[in-house]
């Protein structure tokens, strides 16, 4: 295993950013979010969770796809260039690393999303193991190991040393480029930290939280359950939960008209919104109950059904932290678990 001391991190970040645009967790305006590293960026590797997920590196909140131009009666269509810039996503926690696998199942399936694919292929993921899980964390529910988060390279922060282990060819290639900065380290510190972290996780309130197997199995009963009414009555139909979620992936495609040009762009959308999915004319889910139910049915029932049992949730806990009225997937899954009609 390799390591690098805190004293050399500035050099490390500079060296990494020479290889591609470097995204890492940094303190901006009093909160920690993934930010493009520049000299002077206040990197924060202590925060368990960034406010938003890092999905926008592959799936930006807004991106232009095409331009239509008119010149008299002539119409020309110009496709936007594929995003082929090299990037490095550094300091990604285990839950977020697994969220990419969920997104891949959506965007890399036929028909492949060329924009997503280009970004995904040009990104090297350097994960960071968790050492201080929060009460909102429940990655373990989905068999995600927060202490061994995977990605192209895995890192562990133990004291002032960042331990470094390449996992894939991409990871090895990146490691070679910065080899000069890394020293040999021994694994004892990492092993001890992994053990301590697991002990902490066992004490957290969601340690024993499991998604009842009857939820993905009983689609119809879950759909018709009485729990949706009371829970959705309190939902505001905002879309804070979907926008901070690393696995939510709905988008809308729209046209923006300026002068004699139309830009076709796509932007994040949310099934919680009233104006979501205007099929032909209207959103087929007219009530708040239907929209609320959709988000959780998708994550807990439909997605696993179509993807060999994988839930569309990685237990990052962001929706637990950000919902203005404290509704979230745990509350829903627990309610379904004890519901008499499921």
């Amino acid at each position, binding site marked *: 295993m390799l390591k690098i001391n805190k004293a050399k991190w500035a050099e490390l970040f500079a060296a990494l950013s020479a290889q591609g645009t470097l995204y890492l967790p940094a303190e901006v*305006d*009093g*909160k920690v979010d993934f930010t493009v590293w520049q000299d002077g960026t206040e990197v924060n590797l*202590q925060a*368990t969770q960034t*406010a*938003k997920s890092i999905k926008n590196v592959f799936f930006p*909140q*807004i991106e232009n796809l095409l331009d239509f131009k008119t010149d008299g009666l002539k119409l020309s269509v110009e496709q936007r260039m594929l995003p082929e810039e090299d990037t490095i996503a550094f300091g990604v926690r285990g839950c977020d690393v697994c969220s990419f696998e969920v997104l891949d199942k959506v965007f890399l399936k036929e028909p492949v999303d060329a924009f997503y694919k280009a970004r995904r292929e040009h990104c090297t993921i350097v994960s960071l193991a968790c050492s*201080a*899980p*929060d*009460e*909102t964390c429940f990655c373990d529910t989905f068999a995600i190991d927060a202490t061994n988060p995977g990605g192209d390279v895995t890192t562990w922060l133990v004291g002032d040393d960042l331990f470094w282990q390449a996992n894939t060819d991409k990871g090895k290639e990146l490691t070679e480029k910065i080899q000069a900065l890394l020293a040999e380290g021994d694994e004892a510190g990492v092993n001890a930290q992994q053990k301590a972290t697991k002990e*902490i996780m066992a*004490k*957290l*309130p*969601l340690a024993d939280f499991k998604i009842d197997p009857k939820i993905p199995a009983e689609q119809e009963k879950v759909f018709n359950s009485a729990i949706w009414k*009371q829970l959705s*009555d*309190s939902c*505001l*139909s*905002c*879309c*804070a939960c979907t*926008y*901070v979620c690393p696995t939510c992936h709905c988008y*809308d495609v729209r046209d*923006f008209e300026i002068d004699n040009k139309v830009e076709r*762009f796509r*932007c*994040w*959308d*949310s099934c919680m*919104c*009233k*104006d979501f999915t*205007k099929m032909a004319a209207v959103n087929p889910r007219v009530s708040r109950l239907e929209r609320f139910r959709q988000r959780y049915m998708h994550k807990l029932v439909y997605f696993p059904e179509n993807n060999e049992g994988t839930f569309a949730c990685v237990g990052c806990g962001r929706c*637990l932290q*950000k919902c*203005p*009225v*404290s*509704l*979230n997937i*745990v*509350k829903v899954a*627990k309610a379904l678990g004890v519901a008499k009609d499921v």
Partner: protein
Amino acid sequence: MQKIAELIKKEAESLLKENKVTAVWAWQPGEFYYDNSPVCFTAPEQLDKLVYNEFCPSNLGKYLMAGSKKNETMAVFAKPCDTYGINQLIKDHRIKRELITVIGIPCSGMIDIKKIKNQGVKGIISVSVSGDDVIVTTAYGDKNFKKSEVLLAKCMSCKGSDYMIADKELGEKMEVKCQKLNPEDGVKKLEAMTSQERFAFWQQELSKCIRCNACRDICPACSCEQCIFDNQEAAVAGKASANTAEEQMFHIIRAYHVAGRCVGCGECARVCPQGIQLGLLNTKFAKDINEFYGKYQPGADDDSKAPLVDYKFDDVEPTISAKGVR
């Protein structure tokens, strides 16, 4: 607070048992001690889930809109600050006064869990509050706080313990004990800036917005049935933070639309997942309205005419006011 919770439970029970209302809006606990949710109870046997403690910041008034439309009779428990929003919704014809029973409940200030978590507190297992002492038990050990130092910003500028509307009051009134915060102080800082500095400030602040609409959806003054920002036909409908101009448009229009109706409940700033200082915008409008038209508190009653929809002969002329003449 425990005693008040008992009173609330009893009251809810008798309202539902005696069929005085079909629904009661209150709070229920979440996964942790601090994440209570608004909830609508419709049967007495659901009430063992009812909770009231220092983590019930939500104003339940806006939830009455849906029921009012269907002519349902509803009861709502309201902290003193919540009663302003309820009045505003009645005034804006979103809630039918005759259908609702407002029960005033005392409050000594709600705790901001973010203030605790921002001090590096993680892995919270439980929270216990007694007087000014807050003990947070975490997987990493216990942490102690003073309630007066971790209150929500909106509670630090509490408008007082009186109810602006209440059919019944439970318990003894309580005061918020803390170093009071004047929301206008922040506005004064903004006013002291040059217009370029101010523009840069807002550009930076609003560029954080992810257009989740939580601020709008929680707001008791934002009660349009169809928001223009949800209208596909309007060029301004934006689900995405398309660019900074669009976010600014959203916030400026919202601020204008709630001007003179914003009750200053601070909910928009509280729920913003991006921590945007939305209060500054609304407080600036409120401050200007007070200066130009005389002191006015939206939501203090349910029938007065708001300054911006009421014409008086000596109303300020905008062009003159810019030069400081009234």
